[in-house]
């Protein structure tokens, strides 16, 4: 168990390299088994994880370049544990559902490399390496969209790449400046995140650094108005690309907020709380309305992702245990639900080669199984209680209520608007008579698709009914982080604010 | 009293003359002449600085510049001859192969 994190991070990449030697016909089986092993490793990690320990566990540390303080530093806590699990799980499910024939070996290798970078982002504690993984994750995705996408794939791929890349440049500057500050304060170079946590930064500097990190994360999330790469990327990406993009890549941004923005710059986070909350609310409402206007099923889900990520951001910036725990749980639930929804769109796209809602109608009578699974995912997406979507949304909104009730009310319209666009989508595609002749002969879900979807459905229900083990683990680490934030805040008002939003009573 | 400034002004003037040549001339040979002027102008500057600050590094630089200039002339003229053999002209405007 000593090196399990290294194993988890690099196993997919090594397996991906070996994958070049695998026969083309068995590539898919190879990919599935590799990702399954990776998932099992993550499960082992969870089993071995000490739920009562809020700090980093399974820490691996070895200096890489001691003169500048760069080190190979891995560790997992309650916040990152489940995101890593989600990554490996979604990758496995996505590979199981894979229906692409063209050049499938290269695709699988790309996915495995992508998995390494994603898991790496969540588990690494050295900021320079974090940045490396962060940027590296773009490359396989660029390749997946650009090589296996639909007609406008190159435009979409390049847009995705350049947009997110441009955003993270500033983050690099921020990272270097942060290291410089650390060196100034301690006389030692270090890029280790836990070291940085201990650093108190002057208020003005915090504002600038927060901004530098914010842009990178905001583009990744994606926050309004930096979201326009997402519809293109989703619209053009192959199903597997969309699944991973929505389920995991977006979470890297919101994870960044939790991992970097809040604990490193508590004063700035509190200072910028309202502007960010306003952006998040705009995201929620705006994206929901745009989603309602869409004609393409996949775009609806793409915009709904933006809307849901708005609530994630809101929960994160609630600055209390309820909100942050809720937002992390919402990341997980959104990963599962949106992944499943994209997979479902992929299922129908494989059969009909169209995603436009007007080409469907009455699918419920032709494909009852498909309609049922879709319905369950839809209900999870609109946040029905006892489905996975409710818990996170409820906690996030509950958390933010303490900060501002009116903003929570506005963001809460997301649950109304979410119902509107989702139900409209469902009505247009699944209800009514079968109007198109081609749709009459559509086959219901086959074995492969069921294998991929049934675990997702099961998770949606199980975690909706019993989210406690995950919540308590996350909660532990979140509380530790909040204590840290409160302690290191420069401005006493920040500390007061954090204590206030974490205590019961006195709300209007 | 001649100060360093005098020399530097002179250097500036000479260098500008060289620049005028570089920009004005389209005959390649003349262009070479202009570059020689540039190099010499810099040499004067170096030596002057070397003198007024009592540091021999300036002279050393001049020395190497002269060496470089000599090599440049050798190689440059060789190329020029080659070009002339091929095109019958050493006018700059005949050299448009690098048009992007």
């Amino acid at each position, binding site marked *: 168990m000593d090196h399990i994190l290294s194993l988890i991070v690099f196993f997919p990449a090594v397996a991906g390299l070996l994958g070049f030697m695998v026969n083309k016909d068995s590539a898919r089986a190879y990919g599935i088994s590799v990702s399954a092993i990776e998932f099992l490793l993550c499960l082992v990690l969870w089993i071995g994880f000490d739920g009562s320990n809020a700090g980093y566990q399974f820490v691996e540390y070895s200096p890489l370049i001691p003169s500048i303080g760069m080190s190979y530093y891995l560790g997992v806590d309650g916040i990152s544990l489940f995101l890593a699990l989600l990554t490996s799980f979604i990758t496995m499910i996505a590979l199981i559902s894979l229906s692409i024939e063209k050049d499938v070996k290269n695709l699988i290798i790309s996915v495995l490399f992508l998995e390494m970078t994603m898991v790496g982002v969540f588990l690494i504690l050295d900021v320079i390496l974090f940045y490396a993984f962060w940027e590296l994750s773009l490359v396989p995705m660029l390749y997946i969209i650009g090589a296996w996408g639909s007609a406008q794939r190159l435009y979409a791929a390049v847009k995705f790449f350049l947009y997110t890349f441009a955003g993270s440049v500033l983050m690099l500057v921020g990272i270097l400046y942060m290291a410089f500050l650390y060196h100034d304060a301690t006389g030692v170079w270090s890029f280790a995140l836990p070291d940085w946590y201990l650093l108190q930064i002057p208020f003005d500097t915090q504002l600038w650094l927060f901004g530098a990190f914010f842009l990178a994360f905001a583009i990744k999330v994606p926050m309004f108005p930096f979201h326009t790469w997402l519809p293109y990327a989703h619209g053009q990406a192959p199903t597997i690309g969309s699944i991973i993009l929505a389920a995991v890549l977006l979470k890297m941004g919101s994870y960044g907020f939790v991992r970097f923005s809040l604990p490193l710059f508590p004063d700035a986070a509190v200072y910028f709380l309202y502007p960010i909350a306003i952006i998040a609310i705009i995201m929620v409402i705006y994206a929901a309305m745009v989603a309602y206007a869409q004609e393409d099923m996949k775009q609806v889900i793409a915009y709904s992702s933006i809307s849901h990520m708005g609530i994630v951001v809101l929960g994160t910036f609630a600055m209390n245990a309820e909100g942050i725990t809720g937002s992390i749980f919402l990341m997980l639930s959104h990963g599962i639900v949106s992944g499943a929804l994209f997979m479902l769109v992929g299922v129908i796209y494989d059969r009909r080669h169209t995603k436009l809602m007007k080409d469907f109608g009455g699918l419920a009578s032709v494909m009852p199984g498909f309609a049922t699974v879709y319905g369950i995912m839809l209900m999870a997406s609109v946040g029905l209680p006892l489905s996975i979507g409710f818990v996170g949304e409820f906690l996030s909104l509950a958390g933010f209520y303490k900060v501002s009730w009116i903003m929570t009310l506005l963001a809460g319209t997301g649950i109304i608007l979410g119902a509107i666009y989702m139900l409209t989508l469902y009505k247009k595609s699944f209800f009514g008579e079968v109007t198109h002749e081609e749709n009459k002969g559509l086959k219901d879900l086959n074995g492969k698709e069921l294998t991929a979807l049934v675990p997702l459905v099961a998770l949606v229900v199980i975690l909706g009914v019993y989210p406690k083990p995950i919540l308590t683990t996350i909660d532990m680490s979140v509380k530790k982080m909040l204590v840290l934030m409160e302690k290191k805040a420069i401005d006493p008002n920040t500390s007061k604010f954090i204590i206030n939003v974490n205590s019961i009573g006195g709300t209007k | 009293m001649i100060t360093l400034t005098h020399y530097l002004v002179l250097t*500036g003037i000479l260098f500008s*003359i060289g620049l005028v040549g570089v920009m004005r001339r389209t005959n390649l040979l003349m262009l070479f002449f202009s570059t020689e002027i540039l190099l010499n102008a810099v040499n*004067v*500057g170096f*030596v002057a600085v*070397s003198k007024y600050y009592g540091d021999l*590094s300036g002279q050393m630089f001049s020395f190497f510049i002269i060496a470089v200039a000599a090599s440049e002339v050798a190689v440059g003229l060789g190329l020029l001859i080659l070009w002339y053999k091929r095109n019958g002209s050493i006018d700059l405007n005949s050299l448009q192969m690098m048009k992007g």
Partner: protein
Amino acid sequence: MYEIIAFYIFSALTIGMFTIVVLSKNALYAMSALAGGMIFISGFFFILGAEFLGVVQITVYSGAVMALYAFGMMFFDTTRDVKENIKNKKIAYTLSILSAILILAILCAPFFSGAIQANYPSLQNTGNIQMIGLVLFTKYLVPFELAAIMLLVAMIAGIVLASKKMDLEEEMSEECDVVKEVK
């Protein structure tokens, strides 16, 4: 006093010579003027107490380089006036003057000149050439050797290039022409 007179005379001469080089239409005049200008430059070196460099300047530039140019010129048959088609003279002059002013500003600005410190102050009791020898073969030994190699390479390159047979290229270009005609 003599220094002042010498400086102004040489300055005037050098500027004059170089102006001729830049502006003259006749290549021969230009070359002659350049050779003269080189010699006057060496005059500055002597004034500045850099006798060694002065001598090198005369021998290398006025001797070797100018001789090379002269040979080149014979080859190109540039006794006729050079026909040049010069565009945008104003830009050229403006840029030159601008750069001159900027260079002066930089060189004369006190913040810059004040920051210079002598690394290898010349010793008063030793001669210039002796000093140069000392510095050249200690501190600058490697660059010196490299310069030597560079000169060697340049010499060989010059010989090879100048004596290269152009037959192959000519044949190729002829072929190209044939192809073009066929088209």
